[in-house]
């Protein structure tokens, strides 16, 4: 079995494309199930966040798998395959393992070092595990990815000086409002990213936080942690009249805030400026809203521009992190190779056994041996066979650097074609 990564991220696709391909909420389970239906796909998990939609799979026959996965994505989301060409990327084997490690370690994030991604990877894996979509390969791979990410976090400063989306949002809010004291924040939806951004805004002086969530109880819980208050979701437009910053992450598949809504709201708030941060994918705020006076709308992609400037500083630490990942990829590769040595050893043993059995049969067919003699000869023959095959099989089991070469050699020398 081999590892395949198929997906798209903030670098390969715009938010418009990403939101169309997202496996958000109720789409995730049918998506995962449909993916596993593909013949070459043996194990799978799907990770779908604002910045990436990726499928991690254990597969046979990469070319065929890639072809079918492409087809699956285009038919599942009802998007012409031509549109996907540019957005999608595929990685196999080593490149795939490295990619997954980099994603989990937040090196592939829009904001390098941002802490949310590891949690998202964990959740996606847990979900797939719960649906029995993963097997030995994916389980081992994802556990390793999570431990690598932790290692990267503790051994480098990538996470420490991470300038997350939230920081970018705070910086922008400062350029609009100057001082955040006395400003109030409305959380539309209680997503993890929104929560984090709200926390940042709060440590930067925002005085009030209001949560409007579809499930009111969850909204209340969240509001409590901020010493804020919760309102029912249908009241959010009234709340927007009072709020200066609106963090939107409802997970709704369509626009929740329309231009006309905001036009009316702005009238009521006497044109006091409002800063809308839409971190939902698909987006929840109509982009046309940005055309209104005193309304400033930023979606996830826009915030990238804000964080880009901080990227260089993190370069050095990121390189250190890349080294950790390179080392860990090698360790994992070796483990994968050991998976391959097991069938080789089995095949080698069978071959030796067959030769032994064949020769014994020929000898015994000529006759002239009694039961005790036959037993002794058989014992001796197999002891020779076993002694001969022991050193090679031991070498294959060992975690040696040249094991891949040995496997290839052995298969060739003994003509062990097929598993």
């Amino acid at each position, binding site marked *: 079995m081999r590892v395949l990564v198929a997906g798209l991220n903030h670098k390969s696709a715009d938010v418009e494309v990403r939101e169309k391909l997202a496996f958000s909420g109720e789409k995730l389970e049918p998506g995962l199930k449909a993916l596993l239906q593909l013949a070459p796909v043996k194990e799978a998990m799907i990770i779908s966040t604002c910045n990436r939609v990726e499928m991690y799979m254990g597969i046979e026959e990469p070319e065929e798998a890639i072809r079918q996965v492409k087809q699956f994505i285009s038919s599942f989301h009802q998007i012409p395959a031509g549109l996907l060409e540019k957005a999608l990327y595929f990685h196999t084997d080593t490149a795939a393992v490295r990619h997954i490690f980099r994603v989990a370690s937040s090196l592939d994030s829009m904001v390098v070092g941002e802490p949310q991604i590891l949690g998202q990877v964990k959740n996606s894996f847990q979900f797939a595990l719960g649906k029995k979509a993963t097997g030995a390969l994916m389980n081992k791979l994802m556990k390793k990815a999570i431990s690598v990410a932790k290692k990267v976090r503790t051994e480098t400063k990538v996470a420490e000086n991470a300038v997350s989306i939230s920081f970018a949002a705070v910086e922008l809010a400062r350029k609009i*409002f100057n001082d955040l004291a006395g400003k109030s924040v409305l959380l539309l939806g209680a997503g993890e990213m929104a929560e984090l951004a709200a926390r940042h805004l709060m440590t930067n002086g925002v005085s009030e936080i209001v949560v409007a969530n579809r499930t009111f109880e969850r909204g209340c819980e969240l509001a409590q942690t901020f010493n804020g208050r919760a309102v029912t979701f249908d009241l959010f437009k009234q709340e927007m009249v009072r709020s200066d910053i609106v963090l939107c992450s409802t997970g709704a598949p369509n626009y929740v805030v329309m231009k006309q809504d905001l036009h009316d709201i702005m009238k009521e708030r006497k044109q006091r400026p409002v800063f809308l941060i839409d971190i939902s994918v698909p987006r929840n705020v109509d982009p046309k809203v940005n055309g209104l006076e005193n309304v400033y709308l930023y979606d996830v992609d826009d915030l990238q521009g804000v964080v880009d400037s901080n990227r260089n500083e993190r370069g050095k630490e990121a390189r250190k992190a890349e080294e950790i990942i390179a080392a860990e990829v090698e360790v994992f590769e070796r483990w994968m190779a050991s998976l391959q040595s097991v069938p080789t050893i089995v095949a080698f043993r069978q071959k030796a056994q067959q030769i032994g059995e064949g020769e014994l049969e020929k000898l015994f067919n000529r006759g002239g041996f009694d039961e005790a003699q036959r037993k002794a000869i058989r014992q001796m023959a197999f002891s020779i066979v076993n002694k001969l095959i022991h050193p090679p099989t031991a070498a294959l089991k060992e975690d040696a650097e040249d094991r891949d070469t040995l496997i290839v050699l052995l298969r060739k020398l003994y003509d062990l074609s097929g598993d």
Partner: protein
Amino acid sequence: MGAITFDISLAFYFCAMLFALLDLFKGTKTLPKLMLMSALLGFGFHTIYIIYAGFSEGHVPIVNPHEATSFFAWCIFLLFFVLEYRYKLGLLGSFITPLAFALMFVSFILPAEMKPLPPILQSQWLGVHAVFAFLANAAFAMAAGVGVMYLVQEHYVKSKNLGGLFARLPSLYVLDEINYRLITVGFPLFTVAIISGSIWADNAWGSYISWEPRQVWSIISWLIFGIVLHARLLAGWRGKRAAVLSILGFLTIIGAFAGLALLHKGQHVFP
């Protein structure tokens, strides 16, 4: 002595503008300091020039176009220092010094020779009217400069292109607020100038208003700034709208000022 101090101040103002413009492209810590120092030196010599002219003429030296534009520039610099001291708005100098220098340069070109003031205009009201008018105009000039800064910064935030001057320009809130405060200061000053002007006109010619172009333009400017203040309080016209209107208001002032100063017509023998 008078002319030399004027020329020296013009040279310093020029340096200040140069440093301020360089600061736009290359933000260093020294450039704003150099700008402020040059401007202060220029302002010092300029002040000497104005006091000297005032004493030798026996009244506020604003009775010909040369003096009027020079005094206008002086008022703008005065206000600029006040704002620098109180708010330290990033890059304010880069937007204000070119305007102030331009006025100084116009003043430099205009003939400085004096015609004796007609007796009919010799009145205490001259000083009151002119000083209030110029302080008001300086406040409006500053408001327009800050308005331009607002439009630039707003463009960065709206277009999501956060390069260029974005990081160094003040926040939108501060720019809008300062713009508003400048107009709230300028408007009453302007009102006093108009009232004192019409009283003076009544004393001199026997009627409060003669509908000559300068007066009409002043009333238009007054109306525009009145609208800015009113609409802000009632309909929330802030931000971009307020910035655009304050720039527009200032343009009517500068247009009337320049046009009439050059044409030299009407009762306002000086602008």
